[in-house]
């Protein structure tokens, strides 16, 4: 752990990116405290304002404060994305490690099953699931989770395979190390860094996927503000009020790129070749 810390602290670009990401995310997480207005209160007389003192980024078609909606929407989007990524990382990694450690026909069967699911485009699977279980943020999240953990399972599985038969594992096993100790002391530390890199890079992907589904009307349901949904609401006003499209679009873009850059840098920091 100490070696990593040193690596992290020694990389200025990584630290800057990390700081920016933390600032960005905390800004949206704190939105209930700092948003200027109620994001769902409508004012028909104030619809589609460009900007004013009370509404710094203007209002949408129902006269709701756009800045407040962006902030609350950011919170909803980021919390949901974060939840998805944490969950699929944990579940996928656990499943992958278990499969690799179990070995034998169980491993074989499990991995072939994952291959089969992966053969179907994930977007199609998600759409099918959403149309069966009805749309809404919860079902959409569930659908995304249930198709996305597989990537992590495969990553973790192949990582464990790389050292499963190597000396230190064999020795630990021969030395009578219990399963949990083996897992936490010997296996996880060798899997975790790579998985974290994958997860960080994946954050942007999942944010985009969630926004795409909301844009199609399958994710967040009104009046919950959510960036993708805000985009779809703004579409008819493309010419009259282009800023309604610009703000959420820009925020999605910003978060995707920031997390991708952080993930890339993290990979470089952790890359043993460079050391």
């Amino acid at each position, binding site marked *: 752990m100490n070696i990593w810390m040193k690596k992290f602290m020694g990389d200025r670009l990584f630290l800057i990116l990390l700081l920016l990401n933390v600032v960005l995310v905390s800004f949206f997480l704190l939105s209930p405290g700092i948003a200027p207005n109620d994001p769902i*209160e*409508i004012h*028909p007389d104030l619809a589609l304002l460009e900007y004013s003192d009370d509404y710094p980024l203007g209002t949408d078609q129902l006269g709701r404060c756009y800045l407040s909606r962006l902030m609350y929407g950011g919170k909803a989007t980021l919390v949901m994305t974060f939840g998805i990524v944490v969950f699929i990382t944990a579940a996928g990694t656990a499943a992958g490690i278990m499969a690799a450690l179990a070995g034998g026909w169980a491993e074989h069967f499990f991995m072939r099953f994952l291959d089969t699911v992966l053969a179907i485009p994930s977007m199609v699977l998600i759409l099918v699931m959403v149309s069966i279980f009805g749309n809404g943020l919860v079902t959409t999240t569930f659908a995304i989770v249930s198709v996305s953990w597989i990537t992590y399972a495969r990553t973790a599985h192949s990582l464990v395979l790389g050292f499963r038969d190597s000396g230190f594992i064999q020795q630990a096993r021969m030395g009578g190390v219990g399963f949990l100790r083996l897992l936490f002391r010997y296996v996880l530390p060798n899997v975790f860094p790579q998985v974290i890199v994958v997860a960080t890079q994946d954050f942007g992907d999942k944010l985009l996927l969630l926004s795409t589904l909301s844009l199609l009307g399958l994710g967040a349901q009104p009046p919950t503000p959510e960036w993708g949904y805000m985009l779809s609401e703004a579409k008819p006003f493309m010419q009259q009020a282009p800023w309604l*499209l610009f703000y959420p*679009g820009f925020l999605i873009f910003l978060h995707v790129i920031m997390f991708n850059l952080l993930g890339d840098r993290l990979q470089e920091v952790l890359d043993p070749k460079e050391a």
Partner: protein
Amino acid sequence: MRKMFGLLAAFLCSVLLLTGCGGGSGGEKTTGKKEGAEKHITMALFWLDKSLEPAEEWNGWSLARAGASETLTTINDKLELTPVLADKWENIDPLTWKIHIRKGVKFSNGKEMTPEDVKKSIERAVKRDKRAADNAKLDSIKVEGENLIYKTKEPYGALMYNLSEPLFTIIDTSQSDADIAKGPITTAPYMVTSFQPGEVMELKANPNYWGGTPGLDRLTVKLIKDDNTRAMALQSGEIDIAQKLDPAGAKMFQGKEGFNTLEVPSLRLEFAFLNLQHPFLGNANVRKAMALAIDRDAMAKVFGGEACGTVFPAAAGYGFDQLDKQHFDLAEAKKLLASEGFADTNGDGVVEKDGQPFEVSLQIFKRTPIPETLQAQLAQAGIKVNINFVEDTQDNLNKGDFDMSLNSYITAVTGDTQRILEQNFTTNGADNYGKYSNPAYDEVIAKMSREFDQKKRKDLTIEAQKILLQDNPYLFLVSGKTVIVSKSGVKNLKKYPLDYYLIDKDVTN
């Protein structure tokens, strides 16, 4: 870093794509009007199906919009019943009509239209389409010289109105069904020359038209479904007429040089079905409170229409001004809910009764500003509404599996009021999904069926609305506007309240 620049470039491109395309000042890329030689207009509709078979679905409406459909009667721009292919008619007895067919009318192929052709067209429509059968209530038709003797199954005062529905387009039935689907031969000012299913139809002036020379030589009718795209096509000069722009799109053309905006108060009512089987919604006072909690003026503002509050919008002229319509009074709504035992005991903003929170679902199939406005307004009265977006609400309606369901209907679709009043609110009405039932109301509608006098039918329409406004089986919300924007060169477009009329013989450029 290179990746970052790549992403940045991609972002800039997408921003340009999203915002940039609106810029142009609409270059004069006029499609028709070449040196005064040929008069040609391109029009974009929001709906054009895969077939032009008039007696199926809404295809007749597309033909009517293109000036390629004629029926026995029509409803003019003042909503009056007007003779077309029938020039006079009379009631012989409550079940029998004598309809005189206009002489000297020719189909576009030069063949004379006979009463026999009319009979065959109507019989064919009734056989092919359920909606046609419901509208015609046909028992039998006989040809008697220049007249048709039309017998209905039951007394039906709305008959001559209903025969104006483009389902009953009079066609040359000697054509095969396949040919009719590609372009029926009619007596209308324009005839279809080619048709690409669901994309575009080309028409030219009917050389044998009986009503004078049509104003155009050629007409191209395209399908552009998306409101935004239709508006942009008009800006870019690709089309001359855009039918039915949404309020946001319409605003871009208002007062702008080079364009004419035609705003027609629509007969289309936006409303919410209520399921009277729901424990709370079954209570008439609760429904009344809900109706009182809705600020229709505010809703109309964001929707781009007018407050309605009853079945027939002001434009239909069925007692709008004399009725005590559903209106906004939040204090009264709250009082009414309280008197029914609803109170917010746990301070979460939602009222409860017997421990049950007042939480209902609202199913929608189209995104408009209405659902969220309704949600916010009912929340003021302590009613929590969960919006549920579904692909198709019809299925749940049929099963009775809904609390509230948003929809919109053209009321007075053929200029007559009976159909919507009967189908939606009578005990056995086909569209009475919420299971509303009031014997007094059913009696009024039964009386209406037997009534042939227009003045008295109107009085009955008002009486029926009065009962509905006491019982509040639906939430009547707002009525929209049909906005048609055309290039200023296009002349003589009329404001037809029924939006299946658009191009007629007078339109020219």
